[in-house]
């Protein structure tokens, strides 16, 4: 597969320490792109913030039962966190672990703010339609995710709150949001290890609170490789008793 697609140069630039023989595929998303793919458990997705300006709005669904989906309140309260980084896992609404964050050079990914919609994007960037701008038109996160969900027979009722990779939004003592500009560095990456067979749905449109007035969403590299699922001594599994129980729930359906 690697020889057919000539992955080596891409892998060498995006993930040099990975054995190219284990790489399944690579991809480069333009800013404002959208994508979905069904993937097997034991696959790791490395997302790379190529220019340090990326945002990836990400959703996960159980591949064979898409009513089971990412649940951020359950994810956050199980791990007593309001941000996501290495050692954290992403829970479904059924008490199972869809994916884990096996590595992270960023340190904080936003699970609170969801996506922009057409009105929010128009208010920030003005009208930038296809007719004048072709594929540089403004794309918003909600419509981008709806397009991808539609490819799988899913729609608005399935569009639950997402994770925003590479974006940091702090919360002050009064509960106010503060978007942290320049949070992610060029080349920063996060490894999302799939612990279940999942449908991954994503948009690389700007974060809804990104204050930059120009529409210049960053591009994102992706390397997918066969990593295997979390082992017995894995830090994500052992970061809290809740996650050990979550892995037990997850592994029960793959016996």
């Amino acid at each position, binding site marked *: 597969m690697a020889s057919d697609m000539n992955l080596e140069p891409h892998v060498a630039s995006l993930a040099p320490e990975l054995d190219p023989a284990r790489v399944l595929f690579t991809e480069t998303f333009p800013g404002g792109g959208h994508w979905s793919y069904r993937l097997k458990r034991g696959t790791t997705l490395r997302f790379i913030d190529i220019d340090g300006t990326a945002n990836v709005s990400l959703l996960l669904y159980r591949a064979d039962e898409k*009513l089971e989906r990412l*649940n*951020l*309140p*359950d994810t*956050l*309260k*199980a791990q*007593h*966190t*309001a*941000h996501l980084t290495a050692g954290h896992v992403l*829970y479904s*609404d*059924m*008490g*199972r672990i869809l994916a884990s964050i096996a590595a992270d050079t960023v340190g*904080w990914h936003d699970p*609170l*703010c*969801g*996506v922009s*919609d057409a*009105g*929010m994007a128009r208010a920030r960037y003005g009208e930038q339609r296809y007719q004048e701008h072709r594929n540089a038109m403004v794309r918003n996160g*909600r419509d981008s995710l709806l397009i991808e969900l539609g490819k799988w027979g899913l*729609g*608005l*009722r*399935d*569009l*639950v*709150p997402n994770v925003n990779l590479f974006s940091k939004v*702090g*919360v*002050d*003592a*009064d*509960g*106010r*949001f503060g978007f942290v500009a320049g949070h992610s560095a060029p080349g920063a990456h996060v490894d999302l290890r799939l612990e279940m067979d999942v449908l991954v749905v994503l948009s690389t449109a700007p974060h*809804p*609170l990104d204050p930059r007035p120009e529409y210049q969403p960053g591009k994102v590299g992706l390397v997918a490789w066969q990593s295997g699922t979390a082992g017995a001594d894995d830090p994500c599994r052992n970061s809290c008793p*809740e996650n050990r*129980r*979550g892995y*037990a*729930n997850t592994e029960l359906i793959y016996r």
Partner: protein
Amino acid sequence: MHTLRASTLEPATAAFDYTHPAGEPWLHTVRRGQVLRIIDLEGNQAVDTLFFNAADTAESYSMTDTMVRQGGIYLSTGTVLYSNRGNPLLTIIADTCGRHDTLGGACAAESNTVRYAPQKKFMHSCRDNFLIALAHADIGMGKRDLPPNINFFMNVPVTTEGGLTFEDGVSAPGKYVELRAETDVLVLVSNCPQLNNPCNAYNPTPVRFVIWDAQD
């Protein structure tokens, strides 16, 4: 961000006044312009609540739109509850509690196994309440229609380091929150039956719903 405001509405003039037992679901339509008051009768009772556009229930309360459009996580007087289409569903017009949560979601058998212990999956939960209320209503709604909800009277602060904590409530007996419907909405409540969390003193209690017709 405590924005306390008392209401001038008198229950004697209400169109609807109902005391709802602990641990049970409630599904009710509130018309545009009507005002719904939820009263925490005994204090620190979590009232897990979802709102839907009554004319098209695919349009539901959106936790992320509500937080992002107001720029913060706590719900109180002045908060507009937005839908997943970016439309206002209701506005909080009075609040004697000062802070309500929308990060903590609803308890479920499955999340109880993760948070507490595997055998907790047989305890009653908000998810079960939502599902049975929608099943009995027989209006084509189900699990797919359960996005993250509001927990009225719950206190779930986020620390500046990005931690999430469940603190003792800031509510007390008789405190209330009052919402004006901006469109016809379907209200889905689970009066939370959670017995594993100290935030309600392990004691779920009744709440009271009062509705006034549009004042004009």
